[in-house]
């Protein structure tokens, strides 16, 4: 009895199934006292639905037949091959890129019109004193570089 308790205690603390199975095979399977703590085959069977209790299953085959016919029809129908999906996706991406390239609004990404207007500076001060200013605008560009210099 002590041995049984010891084995059951070990079974509960061993986390590995292999270790638990070792205890099962070495002791529990062959020990009448331990077997008493397990449901017998008869007890287990009494809880389960037996084949005789299943009832009428005549309706099962017609349902399976209908499903089979549907599945076969699906298989025969148009099915895109695996590579077809990849090609389709790539085509879609290409169409989107070309569409964006063709129809992308022209003003987006370009300097606004305001920047393109003539640039004026009334005065410029450096260290709170009037300073000399040099403006440089490269040809055909909206970029304006301002260079300010103290009056010495």
């Amino acid at each position, binding site marked *: 009895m002590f041995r049984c308790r010891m084995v059951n205690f070990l079974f509960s603390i061993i986390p590995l*199934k292999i270790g*638990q199975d070792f205890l099962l095979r070495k002791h529990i399977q062959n020990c009448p006292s331990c077997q008493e703590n*397990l449901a017998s085959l008869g007890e*287990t069977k009494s809880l389960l639905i037996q084949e005789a209790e299943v009832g009428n299953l005549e309706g*099962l085959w017609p349902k399976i037949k209908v*499903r*089979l016919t549907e599945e076969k029809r699906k298989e025969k129908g148009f099915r895109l091959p695996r590579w077809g999906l990849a090609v389709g996706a790539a085509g879609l991406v290409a169409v989107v890129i070309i569409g964006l390239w063709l129809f992308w609004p022209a003003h987006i990404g370009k300097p606004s019109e305001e920047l393109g207007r003539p640039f004026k500076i009334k005065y410029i001060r450096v260290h709170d004193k009037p300073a000399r200013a040099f403006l440089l605008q490269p040809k055909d560009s909206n970029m304006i570089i301002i260079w300010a210099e103290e009056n010495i």
Partner: protein
Amino acid sequence: MNEKQLISSCLEGEAEAFKEMVDRYKTKAMALAFNILGNREDAEDACQETFIRVYFNLNKFDLQGSFRNWFYTILSNRCLDLLRKRRRFFSFFKKMKEEYSNRASVQSSSSSESQSLAQNILQGLSPKERVVLCLWASEGYSGVEIGQVIKCSSSTARVLLFKARKKIKNKLEKENVSLSNG
């Protein structure tokens, strides 16, 4: 017609052969699915799905192996999938489900007390424990065969079976005590 001839005929596309296969296995399949899932509607769905999968995957079956084991693997996987889906679906409505099952058990206790008691005891096991227990009790499978069906080692199968049998014994003893006290 033996099993291999039947499988060969099914592979040749003979509908009558497949019907015979369904007739041979439908009762066993239904009993197993019912015991795992706990209700007839789901069990019927699982059986239908299993036979459809068998039909379309029969070419993958190794004729040297056991058809029964292969069939039960598909069926038990289908049942476990259904239980997983059901669990996910009902997780939001856990409280509602508990109330429903309480009501259902009260209703069924008036009609068939022993059946609901058996179902309650079985529902106390994990789905895998139920599969293992059914294969052991109904089909007489050993740990090795159970391991082949549920795709685990024989050690794991034996441990699962041991735990299931122990849980059942404890519950049966508790029920006896409560019945004798009541």
